């Protein structure tokens, strides 16, 4: 029984701590699918975390906090959008600049709130759905979580559906593959890309909100501690697919969480930390064989500004 409970808890902890990675990577998948590479996830997450923390603290309502995180994340991504889309600037550099700017701004504003904690009713807590939550192994994992956890799962499914089964999805994917064709259809490439970029920013902000309003309901500087970069790795690990991002995020989280049990029997936690990245490279290599290429979804026009041919 002890082992079962242990495994249940590893799953529970792993999947909980994977939620911010999932949310941020879902957004980035849309941005990248439309052709916009935004390396500023870490900065947007940090600002999302701060703004949702502050909004929850001031209003006492975590949902207002979530809204603030979404809006601020989107606002920051707008800077990246303008530079990448309208000004056709370098997306790698702009993303790095966005990370610096976001982390810096969150640290400066956050100084006022250092050490503040959210009161219980201003944060999300995992709530057990009884009696489902007492099902062995999976009960706690799926029926004792906070609202944002479920939102992550729902978003992954919905975003997968939109991307793969709707016209909007086709337009977004085509914009990332062959923007000229989209343009020829009379659809505005910049509009699609702005939309995807803003969604990416909003969801990165939501990922940050999860950290500060649910997971660690206190403001501490550098609360993201590099998780924005892991989310970027996850996008590739998932081969730009929302459902695979869901599974990948949980895999990343569970590998991390099981590390604490494995280290007790002598495994190097440092090497375990590197494992997800190694897996990503392996997946990239194995998954990149010619037959897989078509399913892989690596957007052909990723990171390339769209220029209308001069006529």
């Amino acid at each position: 029984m002890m082992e079962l409970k242990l495994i249940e808890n590893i799953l529970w902890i792993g999947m909980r701590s994977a939620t911010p990675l999932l949310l941020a990577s879902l957004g980035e998948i849309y941005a990248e699918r439309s052709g916009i590479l935004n390396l500023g996830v870490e900065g947007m997450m940090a600002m999302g975390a701060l703004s949702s923390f502050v909004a929850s603290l001031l209003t006492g309502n975590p949902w207002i906090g979530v809204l603030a995180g979404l809006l601020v994340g989107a606002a920051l991504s707008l800077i990246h959008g303008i530079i990448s889309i309208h000004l056709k600037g370098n997306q790698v550099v702009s993303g790095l600049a966005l990370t610096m700017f976001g982390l810096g701004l969150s640290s400066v504003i956050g100084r006022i709130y250092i050490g503040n904690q959210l009161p219980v009713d201003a944060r999300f807590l995992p709530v057990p759905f009884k009696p489902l939550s007492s099902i062995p192994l999976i009960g706690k994992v799926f029926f004792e979580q906070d609202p944002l956890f479920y939102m992550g799962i729902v978003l992954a499914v919905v975003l997968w559906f939109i991307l793969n089964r709707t016209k909007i999805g086709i337009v977004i994917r085509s914009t990332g593959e062959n923007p000229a064709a989209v343009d020829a259809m009379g659809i505005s490439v910049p509009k699609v890309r702005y939309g995807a970029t803003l969604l990416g920013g909003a969801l990165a902000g939501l990922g940050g909100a999860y950290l500060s309003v649910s997971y660690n309901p206190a403001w501490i500087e550098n609360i993201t501690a590099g998780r924005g970069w892991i989310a970027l790795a996850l996008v590739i690990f998932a081969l730009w697919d929302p459902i695979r991002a869901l599974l990948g995020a949980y895999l990343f989280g569970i590998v991390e969480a099981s590390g604490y049990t494995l280290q007790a029997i002598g495994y190097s936690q440092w090497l375990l930390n590197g494992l997800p990245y190694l897996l990503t490279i392996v997946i990239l290599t194995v998954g990149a064989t010619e037959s897989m290429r078509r399913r892989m979804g690596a957007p052909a026009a990723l990171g390339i500004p769209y220029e209308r041919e001069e006529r």
Partner: protein
Amino acid sequence: MTSTQWAALSIILLLVGVALGYLFAPTTTVTVTQTKTVGQAGQAGTTTVTVTKTISPEGKKIKAAFIYVGPIGDIGWTYAHHQAKEMVDKKYDWLETTHVESVAPADAAGVIEQLISQGYDVIFTTSFDFMDPTLEEAKKHPDKIFWHCAGYKRAPNMGTYFADFYQIYYLNGLMAGALSKTKKIGYVAAHLIPEVVRHINAFALGVKEVCADCKVYVREIGAWYDPTKARQAAESLISEGVDVLAFTEDSPAVVQVAQEHYQKGERVLAFGHYSPMEKFGKDVCVSGQLVHWEKIYDDILSKIYAGSYSTDNLEDVDYWWKLKEGSVELGCTFNQPINPKFVNELKSVKVQETVQLPNGTILENPDVYTLVMARLIQMGAIWTGSKWIYANDETFDPFTGPIYDNNGNLKVLPGQRIGHDELWSMQWWVENVVGPPLGG
């Protein structure tokens, strides 16, 4: 304005400032007690020299700079140093301070150069990883004073300092042993370096004294600051049956985890670390360790001001301050060594042993609450019920033999104490610790 004009203007302003300072500076007399911990092989001896000096009115201003490894907002290590620096800065009008945060070890020497070029003459480097660059800069600038925190290298113009928690961890261990129902106690560790290892061992010795068959389970997260990982480690320990948690990590995540479990009706208790964390776990935070770097900074800077520390006599000066100097405090919040919610429970657990206080009082089979208070007295910090009083006297040390390691080897002979130097290289677990293997 040209830069020459700017320079001229600054010099004029500076001169005016100096003149005004000269006219209005107060006359002060400072009595200084100099404590030297001289590192000798195996044993740390302490010599005390009392110097009384009259500080003349022209007493110069001291410009001290602090180099931090992390951001001030970490609520942990850097935050505590910064708070202490601000307190000392406010206290003395002869003192001017500045700080640089989030400095990488690679840049430390460069930052020190900049500070010196701007006239700072006392440099504090507050991270172990700054050790080599600080020593290099100390050799390069023999006319400046350097202080390095948590390291082991010194020079005539470079001293070391540290506020050590191991006595407090031991006291926390006593309480943890009394409060654990599952006889499994968890410890979330940042890095398993000697400092953390000795803290865990001291904690485990305390646990063992009260609960002979309790075990301490250790998880290393590999970061000084990472609330996400700390939370994962704490949850994973709880799922293995642990019901009391102690930790070394700079965020309140572990205390928050315990509080969340409490609210779900599961009794998980925690001990705070570094800064007051009671507000993060009012129902679960039993006690913990708090730091007062300002006591050390105050002492060092006053002695530099009084002239008893200079650029040629710091080779053997190593502040290794503990309870009796007041540089560390027991409690989850200031001025409350034990959360009142747990006092009755602690009073209900008796320990089979005899304790003799410095004044000769003998306690037979004391309860854990009394034992904690008695050990505090034996280690030179007396809690009167409303404030702390310090006695420069240590009649007890947690690391007194017999102590076995977790492979059953006798590491410390009965009656012997582990000296300062061995504690500084400690890389083995005491017998009731279940932890990852430690390398050389």
